[in-house]
């Protein structure tokens, strides 16, 4: 993961009719990562995204997207950035391919190239030929207009349309809404694979489990302010365990001598024994040293794991306080 910033905002502020929706926001998204933008409804996520696209002007502060200022040079930003709005809308009287070709046309892609890319992105999002064709009863191949699509198909078409311009950065606002579990899995796999193809992803969602599965780092917004920002595993430790690692070890009949030996390892803060399970709190990832100590004291090492923090725990911790 490179350290180049795809997005950075400085003291970004937006007010609607005197109400501050985004409040001095400082946000950094690295290139080629999946960034999760979280927060309750009305926290200012969509407004932040619109400002990054240059669709809305900030009241104060500045944004830099891929090195450009979206307010000053909106076209340069939009040429490389894809946006999937929360409520996707298509021209319902056109077919999926016609919709894609229109977007390609707006991006200045030639007709032949647009057709090629349309097939490519339709395949990527898993819209198959049998889904796109109307069952007319005869052997005619008539393409369905988007008006006849299901919610999930429209959602997938929305992703396809974002990808057709081969963007360097995509904003996805609630991309999994309306998809079935299989579709969600496919989409999450697709999103997780985008950074490898050189596309940075900013994902706004309420589905914490999904965010945790694909995102490298997150930012939580509340009332237009950034509550917390960083890599998920680091945030979990900071939020719930005072910045420490919680290591769980399963062995057989641990005695005081073993516990003493473990406590003597440099960096171990505390050791708690509960039946066969030892809960060890450390300052760093000391699994190597701990396993060595157990084996040297002739105890079997049955299982050892670093406790993982679910995003749900982190999220709830910050919103319980309010």
């Amino acid at each position: 993961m490179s350290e180049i910033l795809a997005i950075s905002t400085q003291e970004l502020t937006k007010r609607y009719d005197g109400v501050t929706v985004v409040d001095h926001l400082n946000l950094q998204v690295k290139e080629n990562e999946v960034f999760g933008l979280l927060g309750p409804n009305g926290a200012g996520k969509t407004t932040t995204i619109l400002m990054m696209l240059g669709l809305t002007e900030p009241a104060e502060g500045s944004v830099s997207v891929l090195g450009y200022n979206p307010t000053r040079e909106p076209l340069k930003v939009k040429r490389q950035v894809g946006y999937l709005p929360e409520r996707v809308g298509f021209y319902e009287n056109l077919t999926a391919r016609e919709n894609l070709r229109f977007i390609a046309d707006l991006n200045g892609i030639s007709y032949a190239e647009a057709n090629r890319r349309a097939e490519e992105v339709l395949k990527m999002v898993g819209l198959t030929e049998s889904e796109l064709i109307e069952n007319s009863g005869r052997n005619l191949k008539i393409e369905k207009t988007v008006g006849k699509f299901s919610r999930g198909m429209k959602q997938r078409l929305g992703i396809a349309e974002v990808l057709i311009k081969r963007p360097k950065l995509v904003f996805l606002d609630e991309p999994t809404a309306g998809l079935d579990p299989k579709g969600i899995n496919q989409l999450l796999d697709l999103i997780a694979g985008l950074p490898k193809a050189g596309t940075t992803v900013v994902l706004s969602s309420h589905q914490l489990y999904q965010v945790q599965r694909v995102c490298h780092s997150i930012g939580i917004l509340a009332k237009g302010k950034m509550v917390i920002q960083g890599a998920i595993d680091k945030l979990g430790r900071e939020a719930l365990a005072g910045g420490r690692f919680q290591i769980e070890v399963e062995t057989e009949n641990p005695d005081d001598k073993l516990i003493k030996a473990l406590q003597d390892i440099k960096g171990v803060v505390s050791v708690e024994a509960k039946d066969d399970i030892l809960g060890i709190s450390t300052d760093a990832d000391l699994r190597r040293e701990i396993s060595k100590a157990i084996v040297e004291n002739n105890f079997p090492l049955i299982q050892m794991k670093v406790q993982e923090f679910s995003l749900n725990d982190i999220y709830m911790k910050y919103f319980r306080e309010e």
Partner: protein
Amino acid sequence: MVAIIRKELADYVTSIRFLAFILLVIVLSITGLMAASQGIRAANLPEGIVFLGLFTTSGTVLPSLTYLVSLLIPIIGIALGFDAINSERTGGTLSRVLAQPVFRDSVINGKFLAGVAILSIMVGTMLLLVSGYGLRMIGVAPTHEEVIRLFLYFVVTIFYGAFWMGLAILFSVLFRRVAASLLFSLALWLFFSIFIMLIAPAIASALAPASESAQYELQRTILLFSPNYLFQEATTVLLVPLVRTFGVVAESVQPYWLHNPLSLGQSILVVWPHITGLISLSAVCFAASYILFMRQEIRAT
């Protein structure tokens, strides 16, 4: 912007709306021709303006083509523009299109230009249909001057249609609901085409009860605020060269009045204010919707 014009044109041409327009054009042309075939002999037009009679003479019951056009062009203009912006907004397509590398004004410019193109196709088709069949019917070829007059009529009609389309687009920017923008456009059309005709004489007689000629002048001044009336006067002068003025002519002058057709330059001189008025009205309408659209927030919901 070319991409947007292309898509809008493709949309129009494949829509049911367009089919209705084409039917309307055919029906209008047939009606106009029938009216002319009934009335053109009785109209007894002087040489040199006979061909124009095809468009302006009314039959025993049928109204003339120009009258029908002046009635229906506003409806067509409104039909082309009333859902231009707000249907995209409610459909969720506006934010998607604006997230593409296009300037925001390309969207509204593209829609307006595509509408003007459709209007030109319709009016052009109608004029050519009537000219062709009319030529067969009366066997009198148009003079150069008549061709120029017809072309000017075509241009003025396009501007008139563009005014109503601009107004409808303005309402579609202002109102979120398609029904609201349609109703407001139709209400204005009703006001300018019917109510102002009823109100103007009433106001005139209330303000200047003494003099009949002053009353007439006042009434006409009020009516000139209506684009419908502007269009009717402008096209009458353009296509009926016998018409010299709409104002009051003193009785002492009338004996010296020659009843021969005006030359093209003189006719244009008479309607120059009308034409500039119509053009500026459509420009104002479009400019207002342009500015409003550029300033609007693009929130998806």
